[in-house]
């Protein structure tokens, strides 16, 4: 076999504190292919690529580019070697426009600022790839999809022959993903090699010519397109686990017939909410959620689902209408009082809204329950013994991978943070769970776990309102699906009527 590999990482090892992030990893990407890097959260994908990009230095191991051994100490070195990387979280300067962001860091002409010439060069690259966006708007005003395009152009402008994309689809909708794929194909034709990091099997199957699967810091296998199958990839990702997956490579869960309560747990009556920024808010929405059912809310992001999630726990946002929980109006209650009525909430943005970053797991589990009697001594002091007990129980029931409940929560992976937030919702008896995008960015194994918890709640007679932008997921776990578009309720479907095409059309206003 002819050796035409562009990149080779040999026997790479990286340890963070006591955690072995990468253990003797050897990785090869061939010239002119889209090479997938698949693994669950925390498998070491990003760490490996950050080493290649020079952001992390490996404890052991060698890097070869075009067969030559190289030393990469910082992105300065990797850029010179023709490596570009688009990170999971935007690394643009929000106050700069696209041109300023793209020309940042190019080595020549440090004491000039040739905006006009660079602009033409950038436009040419954009044209070749069919990527169109405004070059003059501050990037903080642009949606995530456009920011990503700018980062891709930035890498190419610096002469990247190898483009690393770290979880590029996290904030993209389906049509944007298609467009990204098209651009990547165009790039590959021009001889650029792409490394595509993801935890989604579906994307690997659609996008990649070959794939390397990582598991807990070790390489499982590298296989090419002909050998790929959903079952095989799932097996490689999780090894001992045997997960059933659906058509869209999501975990299957059983939804047994459950006893629906006679009276609804939650009644939403003609509510109106003013929208923030570009959103139109909510207009005259009414629905009921019964005990023993999961009501899914489907909407394209920005069509009122954020307002719906907020108003359910912060009724002061209501400009009209009423919300009843267990027959009582919560219209004039504070968020804390709403929680004390048996409502639990898991927010969309788990890092920004869900946790206190610097707090321990224990402290985070206590949040929202901190005024309940059993966590209070003499109505003044926190009962830490009880809090420890509750945290330990959450860690055990929700399989949170942590050495102790005293660990700062920010040190957990996204999946484990979400498990803590889910667990917190059930520290006290919960009649109504409101959950917003509970599985975004999580791997199949964690998604399956979260799904099962939601279904378990439902089977035990709880009511669940699941607001989720992923229709595939909603169709798996919902008893009914309500569709929001432009702040209006477009219809509610029973499980027997679920039709991806019909619901999808309503979601975009068709």
């Amino acid at each position, binding site marked *: 076999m002819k050796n035409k590999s562009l990149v080779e990482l040999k026997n790479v090892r990286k340890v963070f504190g006591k955690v072995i992030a990468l253990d003797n990893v050897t990785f090869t990407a061939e010239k002119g292919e889209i090479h997938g890097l698949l693994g669950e959260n925390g498998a070491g994908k990003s760490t490996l690529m950050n080493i290649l990009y020079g*952001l992390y230095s490996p404890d052991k191991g060698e890097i070869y580019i075009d067969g030559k051994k190289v030393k990469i100490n910082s992105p300065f070195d990797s850029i*010179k070697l023709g490596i570009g990387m688009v990170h999971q979280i935007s690394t643009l300067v929000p106050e700069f426009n696209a041109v300023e962001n793209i020309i940042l*860091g190019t080595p020549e002409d440090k004491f000039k*600022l040739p905006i006009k010439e660079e602009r033409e060069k950038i436009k040419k690259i954009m044209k070749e790839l069919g990527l169109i966006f405004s070059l003059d708007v501050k990037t903080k005003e642009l949606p995530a999809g456009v920011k990503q395009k700018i980062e891709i152009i930035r890498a190419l402008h610096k002469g990247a022959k190898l483009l690393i994309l770290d979880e590029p689809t996290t904030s993209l909708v389906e049509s944007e993903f298609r467009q990204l794929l098209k651009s990547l194909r165009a790039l590959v034709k021009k001889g650029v090699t792409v490394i595509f990091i993801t935890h989604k099997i579906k994307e690997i199957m659609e996008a990649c010519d070959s794939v390397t699967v990582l598991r807990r810091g070790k390489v499982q296998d590298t296989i090419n397109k002909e050998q790929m199958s959903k079952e095989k990839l799932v097996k490689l990702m999780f090894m001992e686990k045997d997960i059933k997956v659906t058509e869209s490579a999501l975990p299957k869960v059983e939804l047994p017939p459950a006893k629906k309560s006679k009276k609804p747990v939650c009644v939403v009556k003609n509510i109106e909410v003013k929208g923030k920024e570009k959103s139109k808010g909510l207009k005259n929405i009414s629905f009921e959620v019964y005990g023993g059912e999961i009501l899914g809310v489907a909407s394209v992001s920005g069509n009122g689902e954020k307002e719906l999630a907020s108003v359910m726990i912060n009724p002061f946002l209501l400009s009209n209408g009423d919300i009843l929980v267990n027959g009582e109006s919560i219209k004039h209650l504070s968020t804390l009082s709403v929680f004390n009525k048996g409502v639990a909430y898991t927010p969309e943005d788990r890092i920004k809204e869900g946790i206190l970053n610097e707090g321990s797991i224990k402290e985070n589990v206590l949040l929202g329950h901190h005024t309940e009697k059993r966590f209070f001594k003499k109505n003044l002091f926190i009962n830490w013994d009880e809090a420890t007990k509750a945290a330990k129980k959450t860690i055990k029931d929700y399989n949170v991978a942590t050495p102790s409940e005293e660990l700062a929560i920010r040190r957990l992976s996204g999946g484990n943070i979400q498990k803590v937030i889910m667990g917190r919702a059930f520290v006290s008896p919960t009649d109504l769970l409101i959950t917003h995008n509970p599985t975004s960015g999580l791997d199949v194994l964690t998604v399956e776990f979260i799904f099962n918890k939601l279904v378990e709640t439902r089977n035990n007679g709880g009511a669940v309102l699941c607001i989720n932008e992923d229709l595939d997921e909603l169709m798996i776990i919902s008893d009914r699906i309500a569709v929001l578009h432009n702040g209006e309720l477009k219809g509610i479907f029973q499980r027997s009527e679920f039709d991806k095409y019909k619901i999808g059309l309503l979601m975009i206003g068709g």
Partner: protein
Amino acid sequence: MTFITSFISQTMVYATVYTLTSLGIILGGRTGIFNVSAEGILLASASTGFLTAYLTGSWLMGFIAGALIGTVFGFILAFVHETFKINQFILGIILVIFGSGLSDLLYKIIIGVRLSAPQAPSVPSVIIPFFSKIPVISGILNQDVVVYFMYFAVLVAYWFYYKTKVGLETRAIGENPKAADVVGVNVKRRRYLATIIGSALIGVAGAYLPIAITGTYSPDISAGRGFMAIGIAIFASWKPQRAILGGFLFAGIEVIAFQLKLISANIPYQFFLMLPFISVLIIMMIFKKHIEFPASVGKPYSRE
């Protein structure tokens, strides 16, 4: 007419102190290092600058000594922050106290107590023929070389930030250090350089106080101007071209307060000493909505 001429002339002298100091703070802040220690640097460099000028008989040596002391402070600030990730504000306050103590100590060791204060050699003025004789305009033009150095420094800073790529990259560090890091900019090195050069500028401003304004050193000679300069940097949204406006504004208020003190005998003079600080507060409230802040100011940066 002579009143206006002397008002302008005095304002420009104080504006030099304010502008150079806030420019120094801006340089650091634009890379994310908030130099709260300006007051300490002013004091330490005022003392060392004066002593050097007095002992060597050269005003220039005085300014060089002031800039060197600034460099040392800047290096300490950058090194301790970047290496140990110690909170910049605490570090800054410690340096203020250190600088204030150091300044008096050095003066007392070298000069001791004297009946008449020793005088520093004066700084030469730039004399432009003909124009220097016209009232008002002469107040603007008849200035010492350091005033012209201040103009030059502001111009260079403006050119650097808005007309060069290094400047663009430096601004990027202040907004999002990661963004600069991933495109190959050495964040740590830039932070060191900016903090050290900025502190050296503050050192020049410090040496200017005794050498050019009062002619001699006295304790607490900076009188809170290092803290006011922080206000100017913020008021200026960390832009050099606005810092000079802020410098003139604050200097003008200070000179007016000084003149009022001389003509009104019935009001306690402390009231006038307070005026500049009150004006800062009011100005900050008025301009609150127009103030921008580099997002990473005061925050440590590490990759992992």
